[in-house]
């Protein structure tokens, strides 16, 4: 398909569904059906089988015409993690059923991976899924579940074979969060709000048609999700001065009375680092456009976390007496993950999670060392041991 054909397709969508008069959801559905949601997906699934790089011009044309967006930040887990995993491992029925409402935001997704006893050691998780008729019954407890209070669906990893070594006894499911056995409790955080949740799964029924991948192959599927997660966190396109650097730079420009030599040096060096990270992200996305995400996404996530933490700390120092204050400690349950939207104190505290969520920086360094550089793996005393015999 040529650039002109693609342009014509966008123009036809806009002509048949004038954004000024079309209902938002109707427009998003029509856009999906026209293959213009994510053009690198296959035809019939919101795409046209084009290159990833062809999405940019489409988005730009639609934004120019005032078309409504699908608020990707509200459904970051759905778009960034569930969708690529379903595309790669799902059956045709699963793709048809889940991808469209995921993209339009009619169904919001969350990720039921981490547990109280299985964070970095995710493969050690204890949530059980037991076969029952044409489906499964799931029991267990998940934690650090962003946005579970808004989600209709979840990607879930559960243990289906406790007799197998931990990586081999897992299976991946698509879980209905409206099942009566799902209980979501807010988990109040360091910032005062509850963006995360604890999720209790009590006899939750999942039909076998919502199993993703083979029984016992859950780790393989989860690893692909984690790669996508790290790319989604670290590899998103961002303009110059996006994120924390923009916040600090704007304060510096607007409030000359706060400027000091020490902060200036740190600020300019961080500006350089942020710009280098932006350019590295451009290069990463150009690489990704040629293939599947690999461990390289881990590198960008590491960089992103380090920068966010350094700059959010610097911002508080720059603000001096205002840096000592905090906007609001009220417990709220936000409908999206917000790294930068609130005040400097919130940003400082929230950024501490950047080197923990989606894989700690220590685990990511192991990933890079082992999978990119080929250095030896960590010593594993639980290797080849049946999961049920591992001390907990």
């Amino acid at each position: 398909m040529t650039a002109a054909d693609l342009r014509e397709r966008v123009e036809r969508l806009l002509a048949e569904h004038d954004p000024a008069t079309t209902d938002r959801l109707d427009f998003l559905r029509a856009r999906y059906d026209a293959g213009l949601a994510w053009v690198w997906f296959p035809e019939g699934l919101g795409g046209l089988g084009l290159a990833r790089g062809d999405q940019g011009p489409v988005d730009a044309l639609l934004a120019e015409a005032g078309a409504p967006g699908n608020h990707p930040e509200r459904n970051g887990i759905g778009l960034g993690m569930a969708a690529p995993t379903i595309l790669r491992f799902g059956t045709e029925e699963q793709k048809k059923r889940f991808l469209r409402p995921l993209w339009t935001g009619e169904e919001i997704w969350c990720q039921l991976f981490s547990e109280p006893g299985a964070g970095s050691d995710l493969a050690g998780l204890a949530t059980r899924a037991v076969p029952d008729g044409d489906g499964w019954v799931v029991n267990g407890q998940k934690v650090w579940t962003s946005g579970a209070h808004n989600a209709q669906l979840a990607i879930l990893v559960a243990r289906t074979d406790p007799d197998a070594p931990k990586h081999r006894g897992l299976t991946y499911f698509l879980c209905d969060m409206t099942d009566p056995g799902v209980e979501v409790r807010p988990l109040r955080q360091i910032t005062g709000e509850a963006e995360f949740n604890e999720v209790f799964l009590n006899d939750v029924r999942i039909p076998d048609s919502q199993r993703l991948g083979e029984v016992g192959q859950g780790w393989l599927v989860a690893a692909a999700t984690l790669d996508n997660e790290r790319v989604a966190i670290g590899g998103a396109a961002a303009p110059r001065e996006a994120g924390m650097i923009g916040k600090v730079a704007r304060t510096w420009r607007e409030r000359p009375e706060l400027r000091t030599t020490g902060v200036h040096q740190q600020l300019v060096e961080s500006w350089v680092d942020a710009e280098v990270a932006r350019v590295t992200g451009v290069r990463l996305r150009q690489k990704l456009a040629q293939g599947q995400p690999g461990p390289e996404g881990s590198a960008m996530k590491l960089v992103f976390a380090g920068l966010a933490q350094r700059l959010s700390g610097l911002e508080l120092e720059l603000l001096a007496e205002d840096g000592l204050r905090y906007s609001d400690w009220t417990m709220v349950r936000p409908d999206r993950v917000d790294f930068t939207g609130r005040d400097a104190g919130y940003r400082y505290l929230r950024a501490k999670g950047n080197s923990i969520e989606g894989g700690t920086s220590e685990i990511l360094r192991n990933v890079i060392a082992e999978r990119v550089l080929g250095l030896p793996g960590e010593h594993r005393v639980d290797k080849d041991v049946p999961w049920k015999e591992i001390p907990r």
Partner: protein
Amino acid sequence: MSTNVLATPADVDLLPTQDGEDLRAAVRSVLAAQCDPTAVIACYDGDRSVVAPLWRALAVDLGLAGLLVPEEHGGHGATARDAAVVLEELGAAVAPVPFLTSSVLATGLLASPTATDAAAEVLTALAAGEQVATLVVPWSTGPGDVPLLGSDGGAVRSVAGAVEADVLLVPVAAAGGTEVRAVPVAAAEVTGVPSLDMTRQLADVRVSAEALAAAPVVVADADAALTDALTLGAALLASEQAGIIRWCVTTTVAYLKERRQFGRVVGGFQALKHRLADLYVEAEQATAAATWAAATAAEGAGPDAGPDEARLASAVAASYCSRVAVHAAEETVQLHAGIAMTWEHPAHLALKRAKSDQIALGSPEQHHVIVADLARLPGPTAG
């Protein structure tokens, strides 16, 4: 008039091209055959016999001397992107050749818009590999305030590329403004000095009033031309640094996969794995920054971006890659431990080049001043 560098520029293509990879393979094969580390180390003991044949193979046989020279002067009219590929390879081998000083910096200056007809003659000789030129400023000079000689001549300390040069490009404060004069090396006094990096040996240069008066002006009204040439030099120095970094990471990872202590491969210790992972991340970023600077120097960043985008990309890359190259070389020494302290192991070549490169063509601090200016982050006393 400065443009707004805070606006996001169009994405430049940062992935390797087939032509670039072909060029890389050609340079790499010459270096593998003719740039043995033992011979490079000998430069420190006064034996520079590796230099001339290596330079001939690169400059003449591969035609690299004329890479950036416009076609009408007998060159290839290639872009900074191609020069960046060459410099990555030269950096990885710490090759003792005057490519950066002559074929990038001097060539860039002689191809500037205010160059005279006399410059064309020099460019033709450079493109053919018949002559080598260098810019006579201290090697620490960044894009900005360029130290000038008066018309009565004088001395310049710590000039890179002068030991190999046939033509000295001397910036002079003349009555009509800044100009660059081309002084034949025979008319000047060039004294090689012991240098931290003997693979890019520095020299003290003395030029008399008579020699200056007799030398043709090659660039008139040269302030902007000097800034632009030094900006290009700093941008491409970043690619040399990216090459050093790549060598450091590759060599150190390979060593730690072999070296055993306490009955284990040393590279399996988590503390070391994490240091290497951090180094890899920095190396990836340095490569991206250097490629961006070269691509922006070559093509600009789209119709909306002004010349400030190239200045910014150069300063960002120079600052970042300087920092990482030194870190990578220092980690290489530390993680090779005792063997890296020996004269025979090439780790010291990388360390000496990396530390010298950090100071060359503007320190990170000088580049931060440029970034602060372009990004509108004035210092506390700027009001």
